[in-house]
């Protein structure tokens, strides 16, 4: 019976090309959206590259300084970092950075590059691959040496085939000595990405007022086992800093969170520091809305498709199909169609991920700093099966009501051939 239904299913879908197309299109697009959304989220949370060990990292992206009178939200300020965070005992290493775009004007027009001002701990926390030279050390940072580590893109742009190390590079009117060249950082590595790295001490314009927010993001590297201890030490530190703010000000850290929570921070209002539960509910709500449209579409297509087959159902009933058999047949066909749609969706996603990788990277991580060649996208088959399961549930839900309705249909009504 199942084998025959399987063969008949293909005959039926071949004949009802339009509805088959609509149905397959709906399911495959839904699966593609889910998979690409998963790719986007995963590539942002676990970007690989220098952040491949980010499960051992904790991040503070921003801080909130608030009182009855006003509220300030922004990056971590240098006084909090230099006087407090950097002295913490539990992290294995601490990195902090501040981003500055650099517009280079030449005969070719304006070229945009990204410069990060970082501390020496930066090179311990993130795992950069050096092609030439070395990173700058603690002494060079303390001395505010005019040194820079550049990526392969900058090397190719300004020094072509020559050795870049030892050469001078003029950035925004200042001369820097190149001491190292790293492999290009994929542009989805939001925290570690830059074209040029210089010591943060070279800039003096940072905010020095502890009651103001600052310009930096902070990353702690843990030993892998002491994430809780780092969080606890940060909390103690926060409580010790609050009295220093005076005038009724209080301080909140946007962290230290692991990669997942850091990503989730962007989904909710950045000024709110609600618990994970609130954040997850917010994401689920948005995902539900995202799924609702294709789901409604699928349901309406199923209704039309089944209604179109009422004559066939009447004939089957007249020739011995029971209600149960008709319901089973319709649901079986819906299931096969959904699985087929999901496979097509998966194939299209595979093609996009492996053949049009650069186009996808541009869509997902578009920006002026494009280093897309090293991005590695992976299809999450767990998510694929969740998507398939969701589509199956939707398909069954959308199929079962019309199937029951049609199975109850009076065969005589649909088969009435003229008046008797």
């Amino acid at each position: 019976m199942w084998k025959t239904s399987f063969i008949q299913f293909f005959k039926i879908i071949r004949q009802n090309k339009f509805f088959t197309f609509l149905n397959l299109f709906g399911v495959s697009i839904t699966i593609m959206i889910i998979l690409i959304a998963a790719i986007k989220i995963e590539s942002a949370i676990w970007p690989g590259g220098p952040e491949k060990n980010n499960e051992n990292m904790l991040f503070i992206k921003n801080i909130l300084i608030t009182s009855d009178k006003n509220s300030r939200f922004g990056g971590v300020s240098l006084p909090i970092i230099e006087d407090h965070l950097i002295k913490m005992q539990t992290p294995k290493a601490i990195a902090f950075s501040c981003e500055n775009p650099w517009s280079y004007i030449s005969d070719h027009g304006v070229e945009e590059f990204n410069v990060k001002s970082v501390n020496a701990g930066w090179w311990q926390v993130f795992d950069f691959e050096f092609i030439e030279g070395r990173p700058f050390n603690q002494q060079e940072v303390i001395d505010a040496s005019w040194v820079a580590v550049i990526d392969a893109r900058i090397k190719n742009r300004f020094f072509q085939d020559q050795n870049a190390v030892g050469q001078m590079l003029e950035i925004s009117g200042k001369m820097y000595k190149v001491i190292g060249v790293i492999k290009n950082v994929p542009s989805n590595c939001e925290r570690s990405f830059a074209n040029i790295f210089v010591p943060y001490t070279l800039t003096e314009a940072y905010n020095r007022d502890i009651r103001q927010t600052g310009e930096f993001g902070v990353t702690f590297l843990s030993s892998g086992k002491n994430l809780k201890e780092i969080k606890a030490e940060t909390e103690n530190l926060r409580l010790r800093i609050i009295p220093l703010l005076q005038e009724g000000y209080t301080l909140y850290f946007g962290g230290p969170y692991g990669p997942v929570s850091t990503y989730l921070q962007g989904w909710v209002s950045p000024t709110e520091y609600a618990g994970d539960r609130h954040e997850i509910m917010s994401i689920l709500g948005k995902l539900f809305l995202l799924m609702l449209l294709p789901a409604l579409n699928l349901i309406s297509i199923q209704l039309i498709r089944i209604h179109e087959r009422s004559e066939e159902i009447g004939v089957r009933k007249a020739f011995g199909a029971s209600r149960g058999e008709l319901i089973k047949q319709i649901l079986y066909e819906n299931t096969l169609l959904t699985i087929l749609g999901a496979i097509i969706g998966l194939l299209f996603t595979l093609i996009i991920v492996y053949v049009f990788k650069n186009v996808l990277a541009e869509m997902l991580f578009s920006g002026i700093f494009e280093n897309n060649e090293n991005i590695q996208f992976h299809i999450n088959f767990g998510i694929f099966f969740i998507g398939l399961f969701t589509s199956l549930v939707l398909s069954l839900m959308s199929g079962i009501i019309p199937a029951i309705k049609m199975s109850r249909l009076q065969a005589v009504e649909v088969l009435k051939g003229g008046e008797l």
Partner: protein
Amino acid sequence: MIHLENIQKIYRTRNIETIALDQVNIGVKEGEFVSVMGPSGCGKSTLLNIIGLLDKPSEGQVSIDQTLINGQNDKKLAHFRNEKLGFIFQRFHLINSLNIMDNVELPLLYRKIGASKRKKLAQETLERVGLSHRMIHFPSELSGGQCQRVAIARAIAGNPQILLADEPTGNLDSKMGGEIMEILHQLNKESKMTIVMVTHDESLASKTNRIIRFFDGRQVN
């Protein structure tokens, strides 16, 4: 073979009550070829649906092949239809997405028969109606007469004891209609099939064993 006793069928809507069949008593013997005639709306279709177990009477008893049908559940009725009854419709009602062979196989799908035996039976039945050369064609590729012959093949593929034909020549010209009637008479004589045929055509009805006439939901002869 078919026994209807005091059959009444009433259709009720919120405000209106329509009596489609009233006090109908009909017996059809095994191997009989019976025509049912009457003006439009007189209850012929309701009668055929009740005999075909596609509709239930409001009152009265239906027995087919000495089995009382009243009170049987959907599954048993479906099984009974599959084993004992074959339907031929005025508009053929072939499934357009399936080829001729698959259409003829349809009643056999609901029996425990292997695929190869099913194919063999369907092929033999198509040979009986002279269409074995059209097995892989689709209904849209056939003429009206050929479609009705496929519909007959489908109706008899499961070797039912009773054939219920609803104006089987209604959509055909007289030549094709004649061919179809010839096949039905042949089935009645050679295979001893009991046939109940609804028709408007007096000349076709006159060639059957008996005519049952209806008027306004009542049997008039």
